[in-house]
């Protein structure tokens, strides 16, 4: 094999190997890109954790029915419920809702609440200024806790959205909290 061919072989192979390595990085870049894409389009229904301007006026001409659903994932020994399952909210009106959770296990545990909002068209108009799902929650064994979410609905919400569902899932995060 000629030296010139050998050299260009190695060069082309190096370029291709770099491309392959770039695609590996792309796979990892997909993780934040996916989150950013979902947040931008509101697809994944998680609702923003963005810094929000408090609303200045309340649109009393219409109201939206907001429902809360709580769910404990798997066989985690926690109770999780809310006192107010349904709420009528005017766009621009700031509301505070209380949630309660109880650790029925004898040991200290930590849980992560994950919220999804349906329907997708309404997701981005739900602005939460404070939510227990923003942080991991620690509860001592057999202890209980009162938690709150403070939110309002943006007045730009489309007219055809008449009902919103906030669905909270509680995941056992005790192992994750340790590492």
């Amino acid at each position, binding site marked *: 094999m000629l030296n010139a061919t*050998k050299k260009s*072989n190695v060069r082309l192979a190096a370029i291709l190997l770099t491309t392959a390595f770039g695609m590996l990085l792309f796979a990892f870049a997909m993780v934040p890109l*996916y989150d950013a894409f979902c947040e931008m389009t509101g697809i*994944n229904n998680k609702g923003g954790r963005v810094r929000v301007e408090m609303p200045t006026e309340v649109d009393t001409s219409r109201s939206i029915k907001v429902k809360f659903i709580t769910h404990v*994932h798997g066989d985690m020994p926690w109770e999780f419920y809310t006192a107010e399952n349904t709420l009528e909210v005017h766009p621009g009106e700031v509301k505070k809702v209380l949630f309660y959770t109880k650790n029925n296990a004898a040991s200290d545990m930590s849980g992560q609440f994950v919220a999804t909002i349906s329907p997708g068209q309404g997701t981005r108009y739900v602005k939460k200024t404070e939510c227990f799902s923003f942080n991991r929650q620690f509860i001592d064994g057999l202890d209980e806790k009162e938690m709150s979410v403070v939110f309002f609905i943006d007045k730009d919400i489309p007219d055809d959205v008449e009902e919103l569902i906030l669905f909270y899932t509680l995941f056992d*995060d005790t192992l994750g909290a340790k590492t």
Partner: protein
Amino acid sequence: MNDGQNSHAEGAHPSRTGILRWITTTNHKDIGTMYLVFSFIMLFVGGAFAMVIRAELFQPGMQIVQAETFNMLTTMHGLIMIFGFIMPVFVGLANWMIPLMIGAPDMALPRINNWSFWLLPVAGTILLSTMFMQGGGPNFGWTFYAPLSTTFAPQSTDYFIFAVHLLGISSIMGAINVIVTIFNMRAPQMRLIDMPIFVWTWLITAFLIIAVMPVLAGTVTMMLTDRNFGTSFFNAAGGGDPVLFQHLFWFFGHPEVYIVILPAFGIVSEVIPTFARKKLFGRTSMIYALASIAFLSFIVWAHHMFMTGLPLAASMFFMYATMLIAVPTGVKVFNWVATVFKGSLTFEAPMLFSLAFVVLFTIGGFTGLMLALIPADVQYHDTYFVVGHFHYVLVPGSLFAVFAAMYYWLPKWTGHMYNETLAKFHFWISAVAVNLTFFPMHFLGLAGMPRRIPDYALQFTDFNQIISVGAFVFGAAQLIFLYIVIQAMRGKGPKATDRVWEGSHGLEWTVPSPAPYHTFGEPPAHVERH
């Protein structure tokens, strides 16, 4: 320069003998042979798993294996057939044929070539060894969706992940080798457009491999850290998302579908013109169609995910993009049919398998179109309809093309003609049995039988028994193939001429049969122009 002189001085034989020849070889023909031997061993292993699956499904209720074992067998059947058979067998054919077809003395990176092969038996052994580990082997389906493969998977999954890493490295190295060989080692007069279609399909396949195998490697790495190091890429409790796994997997998985079919297109495009004694119809459009299919394969992945709750607009996009693939694929099928039209046909075994490929692959393509329709997919997804669909494109698709390639080039490799009567027998049994096996699966799926289950409702019994009988016959027929190949390798059968086939074209037919250990030390004087 030293290298060049040495390889000429080595002469016509391998420099070492015995097992060391095979371990240290950098010869593309040796490595090609090893790839082929390895992948056919894997075909029979994966096939044996399928036989057990079909035996269990012969009757409703649990007969032969435990449900856990059944899940493990379906998973291993898929993994072994895709990563252990189809991908390596095409790399083996590429190793053997690409240098011969483009007039190159060897692959461009011979030592890397040796390394990419020898990773395979290691990876295959690791993968198969998981079946004997405590808690069993992977049992979450070949698509290994999280969290089934992370939170709820057996301990052995970490070995599976490592095996996938090795397989990925092997195929990326193989693909780099193919691209470098094609770009830098062609005979001087051969322009890209003059390359045989098989070489073209492999060039495009190699780019697909380089683009998506690293994504698979990244995905299984995320699984590994999720399982062992407390990360939460796919774990909702830690802020991750299991649906992200499916996006990553199918971003790899859909181009992978074309990685395992494009070389088959190439083989059929070589075989049909030879036995139709005509030039390939629409040669340039074939190449453009290939490139279009490869491009489209990157923007259709979410059609595997219609049931995950994608937004309507996204679903519609993926549906239409998927249906668009039917256009370049239709161009290819049209060209094959047009090549056959008014040709002087003879029906040797490679031609029979290629013609069956065209017909049966097209059926698989049509059922793919049906699955692309969102409202239809809502009913079809995760049923036997899907199993029928992808087996039609993989078995009478890819596998039949591999048989065609084996019969087509076997005389060139061994120097002896195979037993044509037995080969035709192999074809007809396979062609009948393959339809008996996979066609009723569509009806079962439409009737609502879910895939990946060891037991089923009574009303599905008749069709399942037909399928099982078909599968056993198909499995047995492959022993005929094994016998034919071994007989040709042992030198039984008449000596093959250099041209082998009356209508053959291309540089591989200008070297003697069997092809000498070193070929094209000097580039060929004449190259066919297109």
